[in-house]
């Protein structure tokens, strides 16, 4: 549904995107994950026809971005930090404005606006201006405005940044419901749990390059953070097990061995079978899979850590 090849973009000297290849299947959620300043928003701005790429090919909903931008605009909806609601109009007027711009009949526009206000729990706020809204309400109105035109592809640029946990859960449920109805979603996020919760596939973007791509599970397995922790009753058993298993991290005080694995049941069985075969008694076992945090930090680690305050400053300035 969304396909990019070798997407490039620079602002002046600064290379923001350095050859991005993406492939998002219809009816799935694809998360673009990365720290502030990684280029996530730039990707969305290019895909939503706001700014042009310096190089590369983009196809969305069967249309080429260079040749048929208007066909793409008709198929997409954008909600995010750079797009917004009209703060001088009420929630309902914002929706009706969008309905007019989608060339819906007055009746159809009113019908859809009413349905969306109902669906996103904004009925009471319909006649009020967004200035009086909470962050979550504002974001829901923003998304409702996007949905008026019935887009097949939706871009969500950091949909839950700055929201409280409850609003965040609400937004997540809305996003899941959307995909269940068949639309394709590309979302950007700096929250790993958000990508983990929602996405069918995740691409990790760092300093303008894709550093990893796959399902959440594939990504977790990619990083050798996963291990099995074996507990032993005494030093003899610990020593024997360490000799048998070879490549382990041994802790003589805690009487534990840390064995790196991919976290699969099969690898666990092999290790336990090996020890059982040699007659070594294991008193306890726990499996530690790496979470996306490990993946994220491993993949986006900077050789020069003085960079970190800079990116935080950018985030604050936004």
């Amino acid at each position: 549904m969304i396909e990019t090849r070798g997407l490039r973009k620079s602002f002046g000297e600064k290379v923001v995107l350095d050859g991005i290849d993406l492939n998002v299947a219809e009816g799935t959620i694809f998360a673009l994950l990365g720290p502030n300043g990684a280029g996530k928003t730039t990707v969305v701005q290019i895909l939503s026809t706001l700014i042009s790429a310096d190089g590369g090919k983009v196809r969305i909903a069967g249309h080429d971005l260079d040749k048929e931008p208007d066909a793409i605009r008709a198929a997409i909806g954008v909600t995010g930090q750079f797009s917004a609601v009209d703060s001088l109009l009420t929630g309902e007027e914002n929706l009706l404005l969008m309905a007019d711009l989608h060339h819906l009949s007055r009746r159809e526009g009113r019908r859809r606006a009413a349905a969306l206000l109902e669906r996103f729990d904004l009925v009471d706020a319909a006649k009020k201006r967004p200035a009086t809204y909470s962050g979550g309400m504002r974001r829901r109105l923003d998304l409702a405005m996007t949905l008026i035109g019935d887009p097949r592809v939706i871009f969500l640029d950091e949909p839950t940044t700055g929201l409280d946990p409850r609003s965040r859960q609400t937004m997540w449920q809305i996003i899941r419901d959307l995909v269940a109805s068949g639309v394709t979603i590309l979302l950007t996020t700096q929250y790993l749990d958000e990508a983990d919760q929602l996405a069918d596939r995740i691409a990790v973007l760092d300093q303008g390059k894709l550093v990893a791509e796959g399902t959440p599970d594939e990504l977790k397995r990619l990083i050798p953070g996963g291990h099995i922790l074996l507990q032993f009753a005494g030093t003899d058993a610990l020593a024997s097990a360490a000799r048998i298993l070879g490549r382990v991290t041994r802790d003589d005080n805690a009487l534990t061995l840390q064995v790196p694995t991919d976290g699969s049941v099969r690898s666990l069985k092999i290790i336990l079978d090996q020890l059982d075969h040699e007659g070594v008694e294991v008193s306890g076992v726990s499996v530690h899979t790496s979470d996306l945090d490990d993946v994220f930090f491993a993949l986006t680690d900077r050789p020069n850590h003085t960079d970190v305050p800079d990116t935080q400053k950018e985030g604050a300035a936004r």
Partner: protein
Amino acid sequence: MTTLAYTLRDSATMLRRDGRHSLRNLPMTLSGVATPTIMLVLFNYVYGGAMGAGLGGAALSGNYINYIAAGVIAMTVATGCETTAINLCMDMSEGIIARFRTMAISRASVLTGQVVGSVIRTMLSVGLVIGVAFLMGFRPTASLMAWIAAIGLIAVFAFAITWMGVAFGLIGKTPAGANSLSLIFLLLAFTSSAFVNPETIPAGIRWFAEYQPFTPVIDTLRGLLLGTPIPNNSAILAIAWCVALALVGYLWARAVYNRNAVANNLSSVR
């Protein structure tokens, strides 16, 4: 529907939006009337005695307000430009224009709606200012044809200045910045024939005052409203300036609009 029909429909939608904004943001809308009204009061009642005497009152039926009315009308157009620039800059920084640009709507309609809305707002302001001037003793002697010509000139001038205001709004990083750019027109109004006869201005500045856009527009307007002779070439110069400003403003605004839909936000990805 044809492309043209869509363009007209989208422009009408944008115009309705602009009208709603004017009503919701009433203090700012009214400030477009307040500034010229204050000028009218200030120059007529406070400075009028001294400055009117310097003009040689006989030619003006002894009435300074008859002289400054045309200038204050032009000034109303200049303050209208500020509102346009601020509105547009707010739309840009709020991100609503970025949203419009990701939609399959006529690109021209976003700016067209703003311009038409601004011209209507400015013309209404001009109407109010003329009313206030009338209450203060302004007695135009224009014929019906002259009134039509005068209103036409004001509309064309407002159209030209509004396009410049749109460009200022698009390039301004903040509403305050966009506002200060449009102050240039207020400055031009003060260095024109709005309140004094340019012949009383020192040589270097006089040349500037005689040829800058506001003086020929004001002189032509004054001639039409009071039935006094219009200085040589003033009408032609006025129209030429209007065409030039409209063209520059339009091309400038269009270029900026097409280049940077997200100009104010680019810094966030740097």
